[in-house]
């Protein structure tokens, strides 16, 4: 067997070896490009490119709102108004149909939901302010849970990649861990550990690690097989293969998983808050709004809106992080990106 390191170390052979390396790299790059031609990189930031998704989002939002009020117009409760925004417009509309799903109890008017944000509580805070603070509290649990879950998920993936035997034996267990309903284990974690908001973060982490592990294992195997061969031919250590090839190759997969994990961590934090008895987060706010749903239906919808905004916010944070982390990333650069 030829020892490559011996060749490198040879006093007069080193230059030749470096030359051979450079040549091999160039050849590999050419080969890779022949298979997968360089993708044209997106031209950054004309304003139209940025506006378009926002416009699309607003259009869909408007469509939902129109369907919402449309359903109420057709099958909701009688609508009697004496004035709109101070204008003396008299409306007395009796919908032609009676649909339970569209009545004021099941589907309150949009303005009922909107107004709920500005209702003051016993100490004079509006619901909007209260929910904002609640969202911060939940975000703390979700963020710590996300960090825990993503870290543990990635570590697990690295272990699974290195020890094949473990992958066979451990993955079924990991899958099983995710089929246990989170509402069933959340009380055990939150109440059993008595760790306060950290227990909530643990529930969030529990929901977060799995997609990261699965995506990272897949991603770390996704690099071009010839890149592996090349590194092996240099007798690269496992550590080098991991850092220079596997992890960079896994990066786009990881960010996809992080996007799933970001929203899951918000769900996990809220589910964790339910049995904790905490009055701080969105979980407590949802419980409260649910208990009084029949008398204040707008309140629960308002709380749901804030919870979804928090989920969207966490998702956007990951997207921004992805753009920044992968701004130099080209799929055909594998092995060089690190």
């Amino acid at each position, binding site marked *: 067997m030829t020892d490559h390191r011996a060749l490198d170390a040879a006093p007069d052979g080193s230059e030749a070896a470096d030359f051979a390396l450079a040549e091999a790299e160039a050849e590999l790059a050419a080969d890779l490009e022949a298979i997968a031609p360089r993708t044209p990189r997106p031209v950054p930031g004309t304003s139209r490119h940025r506006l378009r998704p926002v416009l699309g989002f607003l259009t869909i939002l408007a469509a939902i709102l129109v369907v919402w009020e449309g359903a109420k117009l057709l099958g909701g*409760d*009688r609508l*009697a108004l004496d004035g709109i925004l101070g204008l003396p417009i008299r409306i007395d509309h009796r919908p032609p149909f009676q649909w*339970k799903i569209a*009545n*004021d*109890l*099941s589907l309150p008017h949009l303005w009922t939901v909107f107004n709920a944000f500005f*209702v003051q*509580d*016993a*100490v004079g*805070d509006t*619901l909007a302010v*209260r929910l904002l603070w609640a969202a911060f509290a939940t975000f703390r649990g979700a963020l710590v849970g996300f960090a825990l879950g993503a870290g543990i998920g990635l570590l697990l993936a690295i272990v699974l990649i290195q020890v094949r035997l473990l992958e066979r034996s451990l993955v079924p267990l990991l899958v099983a861990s995710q089929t246990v309903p989170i509402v069933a284990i*959340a*009380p055990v974690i939150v*109440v059993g550990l*008595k760790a306060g908001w950290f227990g909530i973060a643990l529930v969030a982490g529990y929901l977060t690690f799995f997609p990261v592990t699965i995506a990272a294992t897949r991603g770390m195997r996704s690099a071009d097989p010839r890149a592996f061969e090349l590194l092996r031919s240099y007798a690269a250590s496992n550590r080098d293969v991991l850092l220079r090839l596997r992890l960079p190759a896994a990066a786009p997969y990881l960010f996809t998983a992080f996007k799933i994990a970001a929203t899951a961590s918000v769900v996990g934090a809220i589910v964790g808050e*339910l*049995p*904790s*008895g905490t*009055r701080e987060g969105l979980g*407590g*706010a949802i*419980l*409260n709004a*649910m*208990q*009084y*749903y*029949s*008398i*204040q239906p707008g309140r629960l919808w308002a709380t749901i809106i804030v919870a979804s905004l928090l989920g969207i916010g966490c998702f956007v944070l990951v997207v921004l992080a992805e753009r920044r982390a992968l701004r130099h990333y080209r799929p055909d650069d594998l092995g060089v990106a690190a």
Partner: protein
Amino acid sequence: MQFARRSAVLAAAAMLAAASCSGPAASKGPVSIRLQLQWLPQAQFAGYYAAVEKGFYSDEGLDVKILPGAVDIVPATVVAGGNAEFGISWVPKMLASRENGADVQVIGQVFQRSGTTEIAFKDKGITKPEDWRGKKVGTWGFGNEAELYAAMLKVGIDPANASDVTIVNQDFTMTAFLNGDMDAAQAMTYNEYAQVLESVNPATGKLYTADDLDVISMESAGTAMLQDAIFASEAWLAKSGNEDVAVRFLRASYKGWQYCRDNSADCVDIVLKADAALPKGHQTWMMNEINALIWPSPNGIGMVDQAAWDQTVKIATDGKIITKAVENGFRNDLTEKALTDLGGDTKGAGFQKGVVELTEGGK
């Protein structure tokens, strides 16, 4: 050898435990106490919040922390596990936990009456238990159905037989009832009943009124069970000095309830301090109705009435919440001691329910 070492460790642990237990009592500082509620803060628990706020606990040398309940929290498990010294629970639920190994025991029966009712809109014509036959009757389940089922069986309706009656599962809002998904719904006098009266009748555009509803209370049906009670773990009570702590805790708690009977508006504000998001009008209604479940207390607040206890145990056994009658499920001696120096009106014989005007949304 193995055994000797283990017992040495146990002895050391016991000494440590003894030292840590006698510590606070010996050093004269306030004793730390945790009270586990069975649900989120609301006027149902006003007496305890008032006892904290008004310093009744600290007057007794107790530093009481109230732990709000939540989804999936079973107070008896928390107390038996040593994570709280006292708990609040409905008696049948506590008995079920006791049968499953939690060594909990009622030491103060705060609510003398059951607040459970089965309500129906007038047009359903359900004015007495017999009228449930053939109707869709709602219940929350989880042990809350026992009073209702007992009332049904009393008039010959078999709740398990679908041709007698259709049992519908209710969530803890009144939405399904208001939507007409069931003919009768379970409702507590202090909560769900008021939620119906705080809702707008879409047919008239005005709030529903008491005249729109027929109410069958479990008290009138003769199948009421004992509800909110203060309980503790027998093992904890057996430790030296803890009975005295329990008497002091009961005395201060009863003082809190006396305060809420005489100053109900103040107590509503105290509860709103615990959770400002609660609708104030609704809490005012709840405070008034809760007072009516406590007062009058014919033998003094907190005393268990043997007949009411026996009825609770019988219905719980018939309803298969517990499998056999319980021994020593309650003790009255601690409450008796607490009542001797409680002072004030301990029976509230002249108590009259106030009139609370309900508003849309319970604001």
